[in-house]
């Protein structure tokens, strides 16, 4: 007897029962053990319709449900819950997928991703800009990039009032990089841009050069006034092209009437010309000039040329031309047309005759006022 399938078994069973009924002969089967002879996994599903199969199991299915879990309809399978390790092939979900975690081994495509927090150790690959956009509910202020989890949050965000990008941290640029504004470099590691022309710098390095248009003030001590083109050392408003003020005295170096250089004091102060830091020529505030220094040894004044004293037109034939009287070695020599009638004189003083007819002059022979005078130098 072939026992390959339920159909053959049922055929065999039907044949046996038929034989039993028709021949009352020894049956071909043992009815008590018939069910054991029935071949397993040989019943065609075509023999089943309706009803419930309890405890259903097959090589791929193990139905342990106590209630309905799967409903299969045309073009539709309803499963209340699925626990699965893998879904092969494409999965199309008409509506929402809610999951505690989704691991996508390939590409996740979505029209919109709404997240409260994007948490990632990731490389963000983009071919377009990341934009923070204003919405009806929120502006763009305060939005940007945060690094959190270590100390204060490190921020690179957009803030307002005034509008600016705010960085909570220092910004380091790469080698040879710079900061530019409006396509103009304004700061590199070695240079401020040429367009940066204003500053409040109070400290600069060792300059290679200095070129200044305008006023210069050094330590409130050296002043250059660009409008007056005057330089003052120790004086803010110099009275010459260059002035040095010390102890309240202004010494000027400059010019007069575009024809003469000048040097000296501006106010009513004496001016000394020194060598070896000792006064050698003193010009008093009133104009008196002292050659030499009364506190030092007498000096030698040499003149390579001629000297005229109170003479409007110096005589070119003489080396010393004195307009008035001369006194030397304690005695005065002067010219007059008569001996003195007043004034103090002493013996040896001489009055030369301006109208010599009989004698050359008079000489004082006794001191007094005017003293006693005698003629001398008879003209013959």
């Amino acid at each position, binding site marked *: 007897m072939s026992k390959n399938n339920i159909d053959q078994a049922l055929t065999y069973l039907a044949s046996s029962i038929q034989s039993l009924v028709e021949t009352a002969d020894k049956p071909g089967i043992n009815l008590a053990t018939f069910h054991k002879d029935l071949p397993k996994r040989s019943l065609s599903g075509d023999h089943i319709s309706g009803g419930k199969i309890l405890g259903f199991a097959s090589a791929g299915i193990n139905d342990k449900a106590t209630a309905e879990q799967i409903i299969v309809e045309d073009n539709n399978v309803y499963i209340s819950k699925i626990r699965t390790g893998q879904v092969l092939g494409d999965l199309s979900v008409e509506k929402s997928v809610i999951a505690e975690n989704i691991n996508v081994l390939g590409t996740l495509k979505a029209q919109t991703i709404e997240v409260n927090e994007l948490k990632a150790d990731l490389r963000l690959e983009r071919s*377009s800009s990341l934009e923070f956009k204003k919405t009806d509910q929120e502006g763009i202020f305060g939005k940007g990039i945060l690094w959190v989890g270590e100390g204060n949050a490190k921020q690179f965000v957009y803030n307002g009032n005034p509008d600016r990008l705010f960085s909570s941290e220092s910004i380091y640029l790469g080698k040879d990089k710079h900061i530019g504004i409006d396509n103009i470099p304004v700061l590199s590691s070695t240079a401020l841009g040429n367009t940066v022309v204003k500053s409040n710098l109070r400290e600069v390095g060792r300059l290679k050069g200095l070129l200044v248009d305008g006023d210069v003030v*050094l330590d409130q001590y050296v002043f250059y006034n660009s409008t007056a083109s005057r330089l003052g050392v120790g004086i803010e408003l110099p009275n010459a092209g260059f002035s*040095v003020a010390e102890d309240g005295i202004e010494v000027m170096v400059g010019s007069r009437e575009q024809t003469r250089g000048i040097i000296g004091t501006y106010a009513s102060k004496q001016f000394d010309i020194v060598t070896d830091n000792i006064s050698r020529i003193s010009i008093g505030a009133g104009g008196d000039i002292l050659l030499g220094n009364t506190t030092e040894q007498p000096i030698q004044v040499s003149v390579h040329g001629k000297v005229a004293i109170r003479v409007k037109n110096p005589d070119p034939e003489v080396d010393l031309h004195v307009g008035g009287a001369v*006194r030397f070695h304690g005695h005065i020599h002067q010219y007059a047309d008569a001996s003195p009638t007043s004034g103090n004189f002493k013996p040896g003083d001489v009055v030369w005759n301006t109208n010599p007819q009989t004698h050359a002059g008079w000489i004082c022979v006794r001191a007094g006022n005017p003293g006693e005078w005698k003629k001398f130098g008879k003209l013959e």
Partner: protein
Amino acid sequence: MSDKINLALDAITKALKDLTEGREGSISNPTFVEFKSNDTGLYGKGFIWSGQGNAKQIVFNGNPDRFFISENIELGKDKSVLIDNAPVLSVNELGNSVTKSNLRQLGRLKGLLVDGDVVIDQYVFYKSTSSRVGIGIEMPNSALSVAEEGLEIVIGAENSKGKIGTFASNDLNIVTDNTARITIESNGNIKLGNKAEGPIQVSVHGKISVGVQTMDSRADLHVKGPIKFNDKLHQYRASPPEFGSHERGDIVWNAAPEKGKSVGWVCVRSGEPGEWLSFGDIKG
């Protein structure tokens, strides 16, 4: 597991990429892109632009903490860099708060205001503590000193007098036309004129006294001692010289003239004392 997560997030990223390519509005209404610290910390995390040459980065680095930007930063027109809400750099101005620098080159300044020492090319020195300017000298001996060839010219004041001259034992020339006209030697001797040039004319609008403490107001030239002119000596004595070298033509004026005596004596032969004869009889 981490690799899986990375892969997953890569996938999300790619999805974002696919989503945003060529469209306006890549992520709607983001507030922050946040990098959170984990086992690897925060350092090195940030933004990277890759695919063209070296990767372009904006990442958070440490030591010290800072954002590192691998590229130039370009601000928009009229925008500036601020620190703590204070402008520090615009296209044409450093902020007022930026007071220190090591600049070695400046543009053409509109003005210059300096508090403190000034040194120009190791040649011009201003010392703020002494308030002195030295040109060619670091430690000037007056308000202004000019040193050249090791010689210091001082300009300043002393004992209520202005002064100019040499500080050390050096002569001083006063020049016109870049030619010495008055030479004041270090020992005080004064030379008017210049032997290397033509003789000069010294004019005195006033009086001259030589070796005299009190000038005789009647005289324009008051010389304490003898004088010499035309190379002949004129002096006063009570009698002709008895010693000393004299030249013919030297005159001794009689310091004690009397009636019947002479006005003086004239040397008629050079010698010591030479031969002297009286002249100028004094009449009654």
